[in-house]
């Protein structure tokens, strides 16, 4: 266009007037950090669009699929009614990590979650191991959810009376894995609204179901059921082993931190969403096990496998109950799988932004706005792992890799509080920070010890490989305090 050089410089820029004074607009100290992150650096600013409800929905939606719809059968088989204690242990550990993670997230409200905190707090070595581990941890978790989703999809055929020659869980899981990856490649607008709706529907179905089940178990509707011995024959050990197995049901709260960059008023909404979602699902899990083990003996539940809850519902209200739980199970495992695949691709982005892996991994496709390489790096291995169908192994490796990260999150909190770097100014401070982080960190690492040797072996191998990659590719990257 024609040159507009000095002529229009005349008009005084009125902009600073209304909004230059931060106090006038109600900016608190904490939100200054947020403002600095989002603000225009000459290449545009970032809009935050996920509120508290959205944050809770991400946390609950990611978690609830596993604990209620996949694990009850397996967990009861291993630990009997005390499996509810296993879930409670998991909830306590998750809370002990969620509080320090909340503090770190309000100090660093950026995409990347746990990886970001650890790489900035503890340096590149720990960051690289956790970042690559988080990616693969989410890959394992997604595969686990997909097998669960496949089981529920298979149950649909069963309910419809269609006999299949092979167990359909794994093939269906693989098909869903491919489908979800492709779907996410082409952009899925409104997934947030959909996710909120699914979570609310799930909570309604579950509340009805569990209320009925609890009343039934307490003998309101007839003969009180004779409770089994609470502790399994092996005593406390199976309970702890089960806690390690089912910890996968609590991985979701960290997903809230991975979208920290999108959350509005992070200083308030991040801690609420993380802690709130853990508390909410924890209560649901414990009650679920109580109801399930009251309805059937533990051994019988174990035989039902992944879809044990369908049989529990059937025993209460017959076919409609079974159908409701099949639908709920499909929705829950679907939303867990979907959320994990997307998180895995964000994890890839986070490490590639920091050049721990080549930058091409986070390229976006302009037409669809989606990171196709990162989604491929997530979706490919997920499909392969789903095909193995090893539910327990997939779950434990996912938990292993997350627990390492959780432990290091706690270490990072302690480290940062000691060092007090100038940029570290969290809006939310974890109460009794050192104690909570100390216990949380120890508990996270300790839980790993109760896993099956095979899971520990795979987890350690992945960490060594991640370290090897770091030595080979990224030794010159300095991330500590790079904020």
């Amino acid at each position: 266009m024609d040159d507009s050089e000095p002529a229009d410089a005349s008009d005084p820029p009125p902009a600073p007037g209304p909004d230059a004074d931060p106090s006038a607009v109600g900016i608190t100290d904490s939100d200054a950090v947020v403002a600095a992150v989002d603000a225009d650096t000459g290449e545009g600013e970032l809009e935050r669009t996920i509120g508290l409800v959205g944050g809770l929905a991400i946390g609950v939606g990611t978690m609830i699929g596993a604990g209620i719809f996949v694990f009850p059968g397996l967990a009861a088989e291993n630990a009997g009614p005390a499996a509810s204690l296993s879930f409670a242990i998991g909830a306590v550990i998750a809370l002990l990590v969620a509080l320090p993670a909340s503090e770190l997230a309000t100090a660093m409200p950026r995409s990347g979650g746990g990886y970001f905190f650890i790489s900035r707090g503890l340096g590149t070595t720990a960051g690289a191991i956790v970042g690559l581990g988080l990616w693969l941890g989410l890959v394992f978790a997604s595969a686990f959810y997909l097998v669960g989703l496949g089981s529920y999809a298979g149950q649909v055929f069963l309910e419809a009376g269609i006999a299949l020659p092979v167990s359909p869980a794994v093939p269906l899981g693989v098909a869903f894995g491919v489908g979800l990856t492709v779907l996410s490649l082409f952009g899925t607008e409104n997934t947030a609204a959909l996710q909120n709706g699914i979570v609310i529907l799930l909570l309604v179905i579950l509340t009805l179901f569990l209320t009925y089940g609890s009343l039934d178990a307490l003998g309101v509707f007839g003969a009180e059921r004779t409770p089994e011995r609470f502790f399994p024959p092996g005593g406390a050990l199976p309970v702890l082993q089960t806690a390690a197995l089912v910890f996968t049901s609590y991985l979701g709260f960290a997903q809230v931190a991975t979208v920290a960059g999108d959350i509005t008023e992070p200083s308030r909404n991040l801690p609420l969403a993380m802690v709130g979602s853990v508390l909410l699902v924890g209560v649901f899990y414990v009650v679920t096990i109580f109801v399930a083990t009251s309805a059937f003996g533990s051994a019988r539940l174990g035989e039902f496998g992944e879809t044990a809850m369908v049989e529990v519902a059937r025993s209460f209200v017959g076919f409609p109950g079974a159908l409701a739980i099949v639908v709920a199970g499909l929705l829950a495992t679907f939303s867990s799988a979907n959320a994990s695949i997307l998180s895995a691709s964000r994890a890839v982005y986070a490490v590639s932004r920091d050049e721990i892996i080549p930058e091409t991994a986070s390229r976006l496709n302009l037409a669809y706005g989606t990171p196709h390489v990162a989604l491929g790096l997530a979706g490919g291995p997920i499909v392969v792992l789903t095909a193995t169908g090893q539910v327990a192994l997939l779950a434990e490796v996912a938990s292993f890799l997350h627990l390492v990260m959780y432990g290091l999150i706690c270490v990072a909190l302690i480290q940062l509080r000691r060092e007090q770097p100038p940029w570290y100014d969290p809006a939310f401070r974890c109460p009794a920070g050192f104690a909570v982080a100390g216990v949380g960190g120890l508990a996270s690492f300790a839980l790993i010890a109760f896993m099956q040797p095979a899971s520990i072996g795979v987890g350690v191998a992945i960490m060594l490989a991640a370290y090897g990659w770091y030595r080979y590719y990224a030794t010159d990257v300095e991330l500590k305090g790079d904020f």
Partner: protein
Amino acid sequence: MTDTPTETGGEPTESNAPTETGDPPEVEDPPETGDPPGAGDPQTPDRPSVLVPLAVLEGESLPNGTPELLANARVVLLGYHVIPEQTATEQAREQFGETAMSKLAEFADALAAAGADVETRLVFTHDKETTIGRLIYEYDCLAVLVPNSTMEVESVLVALRGTVGVERNTRLVAGLFADTGVAVTLYHALGDGETRADGESFLNGVQTELVERGLEPDDLRTLIEDADAPLDAIADRAESHDAVVMGETDPSVTTFVFGLPSEQVAERFLGPVLVVQRERPEE
């Protein structure tokens, strides 16, 4: 929504320095320095703020005629890019920020050349409405432009519904078109139980106010109509004008089905529509 633009990011890129986006900290500073190397009177405190949202990366560009239409406005030029939820906004900014910024700078130049004050903002978002809503608040925008092109700006249709918020309409119209010779037609569709005399006295009141605000009486016309479907009527009338000014409406069930009234009009009219915003409550 208050948190984004402060100290660091508060100063949006000014129109005259759009290319040197690299150094935001020392952006233009308040009044004094801004004074006149040549151009028109520097005291234009009443320039109405108009938000112009453009999906820059989707190839949306500044429509023809917009610089002329908004020559007297303080234009908030919003380049936005909507990203699917699975992608971090940061990621998109990193990759597309520069391209988008340089495009925006080009548009800002065109607007400034026509005489407008321009402020440029580029936002990567998951939700267009949130972003537009936030910027309306931030700049206290009188109107949002539905960017369509027009050949020239000689006559404008101003659709008025009632006395509520009419002051914002007059501020916008007077701010944009006083001393420009643009013909302004005030339009009112009679509602239930409203007589033609009611309509006339309403429009006459508006007319008087506009004249007080500096419009030439000769440039003003009024038009009253007994229309069953006011939106259709506005769209029909608009065809003999170059641009439309109308109010926003509360979202209702029908807006979910048919879209916002302003959008419906814009779709049929195909020319630029300035949607006057309600007074925003203090947060």
